[in-house]
């Protein structure tokens, strides 16, 4: 049932393109795009571009998550830390992170570190904010119960605070990964000379539209797999708490 509408859209597109109702130059038939997609995957260059994007994404995500989760937890536990860091979070969070790219480009030079860090920055702020929210919105009764049963300090943190904040942390990681992908593909589109985002840009400029749509479809599939996969993982790993978002 759920595949009916997408299938109908594809069939309609195929017909319109084949019958030249829409310009096949700009809207090549899905079967043409599919053919190019398999050719390019077989030739290896599409896979190589995917690998470049995935590698950048992995580095960006790790660079964001490793400092962001502890910082968010620390801000949730220690009020002075929160007061010091909060104004910067509030200032930077609504800013499009792609605007950090030119700054990183002049400081680090044109290259991978600047690209990856731009992607990392967009995930970083999301993860910090979600983690902080997870600690702040936990049921205070849990803390009381934990204390009454003699948990203090590290024990209270490990046995009560961390498990309570874990669903929010996971949601933050999931959203952060999505944001990092979006920002990285935009960076590739704008500045990098490799990766899926750059592939879409290059084929757009050369008007080789079947290749453009093939790269486009691959980005869509990547986004779908990441968001769906993490959702499923979250549901499996954190069975004791309902997801903070649907």
């Amino acid at each position, binding site marked *: *049932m759920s595949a009916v*509408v997408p299938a109908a859209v594809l069939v309609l597109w195929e017909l319109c393109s084949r019958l030249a109702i829409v310009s096949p130059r700009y809207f090549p038939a899905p079967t043409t795009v599919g053919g190019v997609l398999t050719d390019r995957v077989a030739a290896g260059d599409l896979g190589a571009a995917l690998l470049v994007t995935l590698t950048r994404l992995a580095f960006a995500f790790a660079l964001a998550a490793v400092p962001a989760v502890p910082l968010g937890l620390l801000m949730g536990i220690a009020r002075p830390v929160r*007061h*010091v860091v909060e104004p910067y979070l509030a200032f930077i969070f*609504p800013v499009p992170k*792609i605007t950090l790219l030119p700054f990183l480009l002049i400081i680090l030079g044109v290259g991978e570190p600047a690209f990856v860090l731009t992607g990392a920055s967009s995930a970083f702020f999301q993860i910090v904010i979600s983690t902080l929210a997870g600690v702040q919105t936990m049921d205070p009764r849990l803390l009381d119960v934990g204390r009454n049963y003699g948990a203090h300090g590290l024990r209270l943190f490990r046995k009560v605070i961390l498990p309570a904040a874990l669903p929010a942390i996971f949601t933050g990681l999931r959203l952060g990964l999505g944001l990092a*992908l979006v920002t990285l593909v935009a960076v590739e589109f704008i500045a990098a000379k490799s990766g899926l985002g750059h592939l879409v840009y290059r084929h757009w400029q050369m008007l080789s539209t079947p290749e453009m749509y093939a790269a*486009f479809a691959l980005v*869509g599939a990547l986004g779908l797999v990441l968001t*769906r996969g993490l959702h499923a993982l979250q549901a499996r790993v954190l069975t004791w708490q309902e997801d903070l978002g649907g």
Partner: protein
Amino acid sequence: MKALGRWLTEHGTTVGSPIALLLSWEWASATGLLRAVFFPRPSTILAHLRDLALDGTLWGHTAPTLARIGWSFSLAAVLGVAIGLAMGLWRRLREGLDPVFAVIYPIPSVLFLPLASFMVPAGEVALVVTSAVTSFFLIAFTTTHGVRQIDRLVVEAAVHYGARGWRLFATVLLPGALPFIFTGLRLGLGFSLIVVVAVEIVSASRGLGALLWLSWQILKVEDMYATFFVIALLGALLSYGLAALRARLLPWVPDVGDPR
């Protein structure tokens, strides 16, 4: 005076920390500890910001950005709320569109620029349409969710008391979904800004994104910082301003946070 003292003890670190950072940045750049080429002194940046504002450059680039945000947000809001409501009300439509949306939504919005430039006149219209894509999905998702989370009992009670069709929609369903619609609009507005700036970097000669990118290309670092500051200010204004506006105009409508 007493109130000021109390306010300061409460918010002292929050206000003091940025001031301390700016002062030490000023000092470090002046003494050469930070390379002034990359990190110009805040006072220099401020002077450049004033110059840009006085000779009209800044407004010349801010006005197109604001207009694009306005257009793309309006487009996304009208379509998003309408389709979101329809998807919330009719199960068949929702089941049909959900898989399509699920595939398209995670695609980074900048990538829609080539597609949009094939479908509508390239240039300004394509830019606005591209910037509307992500906001549209966000608003549609939250609106659908808003309709669906309405308590069945409330709807049944309304039907029982004779509310049908338009009346049921206007007096029960729409007010019930309103908090979610507002959250969707707030998030959508934020995303409009993000995508407009990104697309301006790629393909516009005017606008704050274009100014930022141009300043980088000719290595006017002070102008880069000044532009960044204006974009950040705009972001803060849009996200916190809208939240404050909602709190004032619709105090009974709670903000439900990000339901994604």
